[in-house]
């Protein structure tokens, strides 16, 4: 474990050196995700000026939900973005083969190979939204609520990574896994808003099948002392279970990997 931590640090410092060579690109990359989020937040603001609430959720409460999912997404974006490129950049080009002849876990190597600076923008937006919402709503912070906030962000990040891992493994068979990953990943967009605005089927999907709701709606409900909030404690369990399944599926896929011959 210590070896992998020190290795990750080495990979990260190398990556940061590369990024700092192109500072303008680093800044534009981080700003790009801020612009993307700003578009949606501005749209919510425009709409919420016209109505007092959205199914009982005020503007600031919606910002809390939106901020939590953005924070969880940023963990995945910064530390596991390379899962998206497994098929296109590593398997198709034959570059993945070099991971297999090195004395470290190939999955670790894939993840450590690229820290994604674009995720920094998402992280900053997420922090800003949660702080803004917390102040505006006057949330009374207790030890349990602080613990919930950390658990929601870390577990939420774990859920994002695990679902991307489960879907990116398909690239061992179909080479380009991006469409499959997006098919699952885009469901997180539902979880940017309170789940109560959707029909029951979507609630079940977002809670029990692709549980992005555990990273946003349920922890927000807990922090706001709303009903259903206690379900947020299921997030760490769901994240651990999905990560375990994802890693086992990765090992299964790896056994069936045949190089593209490039």
């Amino acid at each position, binding site marked *: 474990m210590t070896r992998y931590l020190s290795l990750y640090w080495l990979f990260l410092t190398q990556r940061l050196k590369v990024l700092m060579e192109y500072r303008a*690109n680093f800044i534009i990359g981080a700003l790009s995700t801020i612009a993307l989020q700003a*578009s949606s937040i501005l*749209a919510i603001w*425009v709409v919420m000026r*016209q109505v007092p609430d959205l199914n009982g959720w005020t503007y600031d409460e919606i910002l809390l939900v939106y901020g939590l999912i953005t924070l969880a997404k940023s963990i995945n974006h910064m530390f596991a973005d390379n899962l998206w490129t497994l098929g296109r950049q590593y398997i198709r080009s034959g570059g993945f083969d070099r991971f297999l002849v090195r004395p470290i876990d190939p999955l670790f190597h894939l993840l450590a190979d690229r820290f994604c600076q674009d995720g920094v923008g998402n992280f900053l937006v997420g922090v800003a939204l949660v702080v803004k919402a917390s102040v505006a709503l006057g949330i009374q912070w207790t030890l349990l609520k602080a613990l919930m906030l950390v658990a929601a962000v870390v577990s939420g990040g774990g859920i994002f990574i695990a679902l991307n891992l489960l879907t990116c493994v398909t690239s061992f068979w179909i*080479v380009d896994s991006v*469409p499959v990953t997006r098919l699952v990943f885009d*469901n997180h967009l*539902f979880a940017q808003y309170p789940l109560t605005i959707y029909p029951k089927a979507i609630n079940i999907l977002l809670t029990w099948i692709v549980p992005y709701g555990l990273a946003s709606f349920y922890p927000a409900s807990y922090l706001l002392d709303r009903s259903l909030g206690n379900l947020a404690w299921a997030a760490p369990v769901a994240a651990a279970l999905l990560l375990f399944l994802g890693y086992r599926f990765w090992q299964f896929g790896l056994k069936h990997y045949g190089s*593209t011959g490039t």
Partner: protein
Amino acid sequence: MRALRRDLSIYLSIFGMTPKVFMAYQLWFWIGLVLNTIGMAILVFFWRAVYADTDSVAALSLQQTLTYILLAQIFFPLTDVDLIFDFGFNLREGNIIHFLLRPINFQGMYYVQNLSSLMMRLILQIPIAVVATLLFGLQWPTDPATWGAFAVSALLGFTALFFFHWFLACLTFYTTEVWGLGVLIFGMSLFLSGSLVPLTMMPGWLQTVVLSIPFAQAIAVPVSLLTGITPLIQAPLVWLTQLAWVTGMWLVSALFFRVAVRKVTVQGG
């Protein structure tokens, strides 16, 4: 025998590659349809929740807003101009030199190419238009004059946006950055094009900001004509304004290109 088995396994892998390539394109088409449906579903449920306790928001009914939002999603390809990524790719690969040397107007060539891509993208939107009609109850305008006014406005808006993108793509000659810049522009266009919220719902100062950047010319302006939010009688004035945008952006983009092209540094090829 072992060698034969080994050879067979290699040839079998090669044989399996072509179906994978074909499958990838098929997969993208169908998954693209599902992703568009997800995006539309979120917007529809969101707007239904907004109208849960009211009949009208900024003088628009739920049906009017849904019609505007769904049509804006269907015609979103009007904002799809890939110049930033194209310029970045051509810089990286060195192809830009060949384009600059060809005895044809570089900008004209790209305009025609992007217009052709737009036609294809709009044709490919037909399945999602069917989904919007059957699943989300989209009510299509039926007046031919409205469609005519929309078509002229959409073409002018797309052209203005093409020249604006040309201007932005010239920035890659200085930054060499493509991905972040592309995402930044896409992020801005989502809101500024008016595809998420009708312009009439925005406060006055924000409408002024949105209308002073060309993104809205490609979506909000033509779709407002199509949905009747902007009365048909105002169409000539709308076209004239758009024509001014086209002329202004064409001049600015052509002038900036003449300056920026001197900074071209080919990275490879």
